[in-house]
């Protein structure tokens, strides 16, 4: 009888299973809600780079270089898009080996209107991931702003994203060895931020300081725009972190919540640290702390709870403050807009603390079965060190080769006159 009934209703059950998300075994059906959120998240993460990061950076450089950094971010966005559909997506996300994908999905082959990735169209998954491959190189721009040749920048970015970003992305998210080993990186602390920070640091050192740094004033030309950019980064980051769940569910919701909390905590921490040590709280400090919080919560966002986020934001706000205000000055490298100081350091702090606050006892989603907190933190360190070493060495080689072949820097006089006029025959402001 029960057998009869099962048979009788089985077509319906199959139908149900096929069309409904959340039922076990139904991951291969499109869910319109998840898709809606991922379309939105893709737009939000693109929004982070253009206009968000562009404005954040443009406001911090001198007036005569404002356009040049915006143009770098925008061009990176375009270049990565084309490379992505040609071969990068395939390198990063096709099966390949533990170290790199293959070219089986080059030219987006196999990605049709009906291809799914979980409950969302693969086209959306691919575009969402593309926006990460856009913002990562764009972040590096902050380290060498105001002195790099545009052509050298293009070459560097095209090569770097192919031989550094794509493999590391594959290691963590594409089925590679770091992911397999259990390193936790929900939305890109390692892949995006440490990666960009280290490449930036190497670039800053290889290229040398800006003319006049640090003796003569390097004042931000338009902090109003920088604050706008920071606000856009914050808003867009909801797509970055909550979007990394690839679904509109409770994990995405919690990822958004902890993002909000850590950002606020990072901002207040930097502000109060500055207030205490310098005597006044500054707007640039406040938003720098916000970005520090955003960076650090990124790897942790799907794993920790609100109180863990508070702690992570606090740690990152303070750590990045020290890094930018003290460490950079001590060592004397010219990381123009603190790509390393905020993204590198914040990424490392976040990656480590993800291993701590994932613990259910601290409000997190819980450690994997049989993995102790110490073990998880150890794995996190493996991820961090692997990224630093690989990215550091390869970035260095690319830069050195390019420097010898085409030269990385503009001439001293061109730097004096400003990149906008010299490289682009334009001015940012004609007022």
């Amino acid at each position, binding site marked *: 009888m029960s057998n009869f009934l099962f048979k009788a209703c089985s077509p319906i059950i199959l139908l149900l299973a096929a069309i409904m998300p959340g039922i076990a075994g139904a991951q291969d059906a499109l869910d319109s809600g998840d898709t809606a959120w991922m379309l939105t998240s893709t737009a939000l993460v693109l929004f982070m780079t253009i206009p968000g990061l562009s404005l954040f950076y443009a406001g911090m450089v001198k007036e005569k270089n404002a356009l040049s950094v915006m143009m770098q971010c925008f061009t990176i966005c375009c270049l990565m898009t084309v490379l992505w559909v040609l071969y990068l997506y395939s390198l990063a996300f096709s099966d390949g080996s533990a170290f790199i994908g293959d070219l089986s999905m080059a030219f987006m082959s196999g990605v049709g209107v009906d291809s799914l990735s979980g409950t969302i169209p693969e086209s959306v998954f691919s575009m969402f991931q593309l926006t990460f491959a856009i913002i990562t190189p764009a972040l590096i721009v902050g380290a060498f702003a105001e002195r790099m040749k545009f052509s050298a920048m293009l070459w560097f970015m095209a090569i770097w994203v192919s031989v550094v970003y794509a493999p590391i992305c594959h290691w963590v998210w594409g089925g590679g060895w770091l992911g397999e080993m259990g390193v936790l990186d929900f939305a890109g602390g390692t892949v995006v931020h440490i990666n960009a920070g280290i490449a930036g640091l190497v670039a800053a050192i290889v290229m040398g300081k800006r003319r006049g740094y640090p003796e003569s004033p*390097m004042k931000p030309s338009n902090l109003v725009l920088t604050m706008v950019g920071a606000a856009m980064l914050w808003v867009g980051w909801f797509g970055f972190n909550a979007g990394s769940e690839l679904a509109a569910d409770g994990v995405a919701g919690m990822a958004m919540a902890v993002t909000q909390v850590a950002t606020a905590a990072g901002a207040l921490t930097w502000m109060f640290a*500055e207030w205490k040590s310098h005597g006044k709280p500054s707007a640039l400090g406040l938003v*720098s702390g916000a970005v520090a919080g955003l960076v650090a919560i990124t790897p942790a966002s799907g794993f920790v709870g609100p109180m863990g986020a508070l702690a992570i934001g606090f740690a990152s706000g303070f750590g990045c403050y020290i890094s930018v205000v003290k460490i950079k000055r001590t060592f004397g490298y010219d990381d123009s807009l603190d790509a390393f100081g905020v993204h590198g350091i914040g990424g490392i702090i976040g990656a480590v603390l993800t291993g701590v606050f994932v613990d259910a006892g601290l409000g997190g989603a819980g450690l994997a079965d049989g993995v102790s907190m110490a073990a998880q933190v150890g794995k996190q360190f493996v991820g961090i060190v692997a990224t630093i070493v690989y990215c550091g060495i390869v970035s260095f080689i690319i830069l050195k080769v390019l420097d010898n072949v085409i030269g990385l820097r503009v001439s001293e006089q061109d730097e004096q006159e400003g990149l906008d006029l010299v490289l682009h025959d334009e001015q940012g402001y004609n007022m």
Partner: protein
Amino acid sequence: MKLITAVIKPFKLEEVREALAEAGVQGMTVTEVKGFGRQKGHTELYRGAEYSVDFIPKTKIEAAVSDELVEVAVEAIVSSAATGSIGDGKVFISDLGQVTRIRTGETGDQAL
């Protein structure tokens, strides 16, 4: 004719302009400038980099006046621009050889 050049605190511009008008000066040309002198500047801080800014925003007024007006004009400026605190500025007087009104070609005192 003389050219009176005054460097004043920017927020005093309106008062000085009125005082000059009252004194009979009918035209003037105003420039935003930065001043350096006894008055101390301020400090700016950007991500730990401290800059001391010595130059202070000032406003420069240039007015060409006929010789007989000079004294009362200077008087008008001094009394309207003074706040008594450091940085109130200066008034300079120099000779003017000739003045021409572009619209009409008039010259001399008539051109003022």
